[in-house]
């Protein structure tokens, strides 16, 4: 295995376009994940730093989505440790993950089809609503104040992602590319410190991909959100990300800047195949 951590000093680094990347936000140490006899992830270690866009790539079945599920706390690895914000993380419930400031989007869109775009994004704010049941039911005092505050936050995201015109449209009626954007909006509504994107460009046309890339960069730039993403489209990954982890058959075969990864022989072999003689 080739380790290429040359660009990352302990206190962070400066990217090619001049952004300051901070210290380690999440550290994955020796992760191994098994489903029965199948080893989906084999002893993988890498870190995600504050403010960076970190991509996980690899051919089909390489274990990317499993890795993302480990990061999100959905899967608990049999071996290895997950450190988040300097603390070792044990098994967690989904709402505990959300409270830690981790939000995600899904490869297969997981929105509420019958609800409007606005309401879907509002669900992303649920863990920020603290008013009691009674107060919510009669819509008075704290509940009303909270709703207005949260709606304002949601409107800022709607403005940011330029979806004002579909605010009140039921999600089920939207085209695929817009649904993906609404999913991103819902994830952003939770104001996450770490945003996980599972194939954000899958199935999109060129224009939709360009839009989505711009939004991802803008989210990172405007909100300082750390982003970990899985993506198939190599062009997109190489343009977007600061550092890339490459997986193949559950192993990590490369880790570094897009340029370093691009010139890594093992990565080239995994993507293009090797001649058997």
């Amino acid at each position, binding site marked *: 295995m080739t380790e290429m951590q040359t660009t990352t000093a302990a206190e962070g680094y400066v990217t090619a376009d001049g952004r300051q990347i901070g210290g380690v936000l999440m550290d994955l140490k020796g992760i191994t994940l098994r489903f029965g006899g199948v080893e989906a992830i084999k002893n993988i270690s890498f870190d995600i730093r504050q403010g960076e866009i970190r991509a996980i790539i690899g051919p089909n079945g390489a274990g990317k989505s499993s890795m993302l599920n480990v990061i999100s706390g959905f899967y608990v690895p049999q071996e290895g440790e997950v450190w988040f914000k300097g603390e070792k993380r044990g098994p967690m419930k989904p709402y505990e993950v959300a409270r830690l400031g981790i939000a995600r989007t899904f490869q297969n869109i997981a929105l509420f089809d019958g609800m409007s775009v606005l309401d879907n994004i509002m669900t992303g704010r649920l863990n920020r609503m603290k008013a009691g049941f009674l107060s919510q039911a009669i819509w008075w005092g704290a509940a009303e104040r909270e709703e207005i505050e949260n709606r304002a936050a949601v409107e800022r995201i709607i403005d940011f992602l330029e979806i004002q*015109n579909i605010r009140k449209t039921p999600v089920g009626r939207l085209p695929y590319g817009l649904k993906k954007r609404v999913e991103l909006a819902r994830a952003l509504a939770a104001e996450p410190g770490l945003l996980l994107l599972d194939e954000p460009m899958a199935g999109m046309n060129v224009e939709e991909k360009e839009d989505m890339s711009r939004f991802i960069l803008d989210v990172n*730039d405007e909100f300082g959100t750390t982003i970990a993403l899985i993506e198939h489209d190599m062009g997109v990954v190489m343009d977007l990300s600061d550092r890339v982890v490459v997986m193949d058959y559950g192993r990590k075969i490369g880790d570094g800047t897009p340029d370093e990864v691009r010139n890594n022989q093992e990565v080239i072999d995994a993507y293009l195949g090797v001649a058997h003689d």
Partner: protein
Amino acid sequence: MTDRQSPAGEAESIPALLARNAARMGARPAYREKEFGVWQSWTWAETAEEVRAIALGFLVLGLKPGDHVAVIGRNRPAHYWSMIAAQMCGAVPVPLYQDAVAEEMAYVLGHSGARFVICGDQEQVDKVLEVQSMPDAPQTIEQIVYTDKRGMRKYDHSHMNALAHVQAEGRAAETRLGPELDARIAGLGYDDTCVMLYTSGTTGKPKGVVLSSRNIIETSKNTADFDHLTEGEEVLAYLPMAWVGDFIFSMGQAIWSGFTVNCPEGAHTMMTDLREIGPTYFFAPPRVFEGQLTNVMIRMEDAGRFKKWLFDHYMKVARRVGPAILDGETVGFGDRLAYALGNLFVYGPLKNTLGYSRIRVGYTAGEAIGPEIFDFYRSLGINLKQLYGQTEASVFITQQPDGQVRSDTVGVPSPGVELKIAENGEVFYRSPGTFVEYYNNPDSTASTKDAEGWVATGDAGFFEEGTGHLRIIDRAKDVGKMADGRMFAPKYVENKLKFYPNILEAVVIGNGRAYCTAMINIDLGAVGNWAERNNIAYASYQELAAHPQVYATIKSHVEEVNRSVAEDPMLSGCQVHRFLVLHKELDPDDGEMTRTRKVRRSVINEKFADLVSALYDGSPTVYTETEVTYEDGRKGHIKATLQIEDAQVFGEALQQKVAAE
């Protein structure tokens, strides 16, 4: 009603009128903008404060009297305020079309020599920076100010500021620069330049039309009186800020009458915002009305049988008596009752859905509007009228008074406007709104405006006997002669074709030829819906346009038009003998249309020369490759083999082709 000062008094500039409004109706809403899902509102007093802060900020940045300030962005209060602020500093605002590509912008920025550029967002800033980096670009731009901060953090800010920061600095500099600003405002004269607007230019480079405060304020005053506009009107500012109409409606008339200007959230939410605001005074090009009517009809096709019956029944009633009721004519009791019921069941809810519940005065102009479309809106009780105008006249040349509205005329001369018709049929006007000059272009100024102030409109028309209404036939230079000496007026036929919802655009060719032919653009909305209804699958615009059944439909439209053209003895030679359906939509980005969506005939004749010759050499099909420009400025090619169809002609036109062959 607030009493208004005579323009000859102290209100001799837009900044002076703003001060007047702030003093007399300070608490009334002046501007609204929907942002973050809520309509934010500013009173006249608040507006005056905001504008003053921007003006002081401009002084901090070193704006000098006589400088040009380009404004590029969508309709937002901040952009209107920047224009007034520039005027306060003695500078001249120059609004530009925000959808123009960098090359187009380069010419206008260079020609105007703008030192300051106000950009709406990152996209516009990028274009301005691209212009600055062009090798032969004149480096006049010194300061860029942007309104939307998004994505701007990483830019080099040595000559760049956010508008909010400019305002903050302006507020801080009040004591230091306030007296200077007051002196500059006091120095504004009635004949000083108020604004410079670039004409879209169907031919050649755009020209900078210089309009004085006198032009704008006199025109606004006259026309506000004509339609009894008060400070209670609500308008929706959604048309390009670079267009003279928006400047008159959302700036001149708004500030003269003191009414409220509402800015939509964005271009794509315009229809929702229109419904929410329910303007009382509304302007739209025929395209908008056509689009809305098409949508209504498509949705009614999908409605249940009872609803459909109700709609059809009451629309019949409306068509019969609606226009008469609107014009205040005598209508029988039975009809009035039927109309009142129709209003309850159909017209009221429909108008509400369209956002037209409160319209008192509506105008359409720019292109001819189809009589059916025009009558549809009028029969609903919407006081839709036509006006005829151009940038050089500060919009208004003629307009229709209440009660004398028809789809085939453009009305009587606006107050203060004199009209005359030259021997060749060209319409000339002289008015208080007549422009001062074309900027840095004395030759064009002299050839357009004579010493006595008469301006050639470039349009051919005549006064209708009896009513005194003006009728426009076509552009004077487009009116030509066919090979047999008959009159050729392409626009006349094109308009008839475009009245069919399936046809978006048509170009009729025939000047100097034996017979006329046409290139037609289908309307993707209408034809796409028809295809869906009839289970016709298509993958692209191109494929749909080439579909045999689409051709058959268009052919029937062309033949109906021929039949109607044949009835006019003067123009019966303009019937379309052969036509083809174009494989791409005509697009301003490809230079085929102007930014205001007027067809550029010379460009089309040149670009589609292969198609034109195929239309005349009798070939049944033609292969063509066309260059297209994508939204991001990249170029591409599309290839197609187009079918050419013959259409039936009527009357004397039957001999034309025989003679040609």
